[in-house]
């Protein structure tokens, strides 16, 4: 139910509507709840609405942490 997927914004109109690229498929989404979002951002989409903008810096940190974990095992 609270399943939500990360997707990249491909189009964003002033109305707050637009599209995302979700694993190669263009899907409509409503961006009214994330006014700071801009095309190219990664967002979390749930029930047709973007509810969060992903933080690229944090995502890189997570990847770095997991590479370290893998190397230290």
């Amino acid at each position, binding site marked *: 139910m*609270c399943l939500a997927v990360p997707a990249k914004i491909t189009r964003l109109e002033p109305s707050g509507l637009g599209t995302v690229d979700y694993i190669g498929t263009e899907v409509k989404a409503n961006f*009214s*709840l994330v006014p700071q979002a801009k095309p190219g951002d990664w967002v*979390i989409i749930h029930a047709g*609405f973007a*509810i969060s903008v*992903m933080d690229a810096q944090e995502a890189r940190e*997570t990847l770095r942490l*997991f590479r370290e974990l893998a190397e230290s095992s």
Partner: protein
Amino acid sequence: MKELRDPKAIARLLADIRDRARRLPDRPRLMEVCGTHTMSLFRHGLTPRLAEAGVEMVSGPGCPVCITPDGLHEAAIDLAAGIEDLTLATFGDMTRVPTRKGSLQTAVPAAGSRIRIVYSPEEALAEAEREPGRQVVFYGVGFETTIPAIAYVVKRAARARLRNFSVLPALWLVPPALKAVLDSDEVAVTGFIYPGHVSAVIGVEPYAFVARDYGVPGAVAGFEPGDILLAVRSVLDQSLEGRPRVALEYGRAIRPEGNPTARAVMEEVCAPFDAEWRGLGRIPRSGLRFRAKFARLDAAKKFGLSIKVKGKPLAGCRCGDVLRGVIRPQGCPLFGTKCSPDSPLGPCMVSYEGACLVHYKYGRRERKGP
């Protein structure tokens, strides 16, 4: 993010967890609140591996379809069966929940009426705009993840003065349910894995009382196997240090303050009330309904529906105990015999993140053991 599934990283985290669990005086019992976490834990075979490492995972009341009382489903069935030229739109799982009146899937709609599965509440709103002669009711279920989207369409329908759109609300708040679990004393939970996408909206502060008032640690987790293990390790660290808090282990998707825009829409449209949950009973300020300004858009009021929220479950169904974490799905006498995904007797076997369905689908790996 394949790195978060890397077997070496997973093995390392499990070794860390085993080490910490061994140093704790009591066997840690962590509740994963969110049904999507339950599914991920099982799909990736983590629940048995965590048990092997000394950590027991218990599923919580984190499936909104599951905790919605039958009375609401029955009201939705009455609506579709009793009123002509009406569309009842809802999320897929909701149509399959069995009640004494059957399910929305087996219901026979009135003349010209139909039951429609939608992915977004906006699809229901669009139908109302397209077909002014038809009443469209969105049977809207959800936690804080979904409520802003529902509140948004309610606001838009009010602004457009749409006369043929309404919502039957089944809107639930997670933090009051955690308080109910902690107050019940039925399950001695030593830590919480907090839901990732609920937290995208509410942030971390609403969980602070768990650490402050109950001394129970917790961490917000993402949905990859590595995300969940990172959160488990954090919770055990907090126990070892004796310093419970709310750790955020899903920083790439969630801000500590959540999403203020989403919360503002939710608060503008909805107000809390003491709601009745399946299995958990009445919980103070745990449900949302529409404020007076938007009451016209509440389908229950608009169509004068009588909703019996205290109905008894179908014979023998123990979904309520499963939702409180008091029994595992296998502890229900109907599990896997009379109740299965093909013919579910309770909502926990219906929803794809319901604990019973998840155990049914992936439980064999758990039985196999180490």
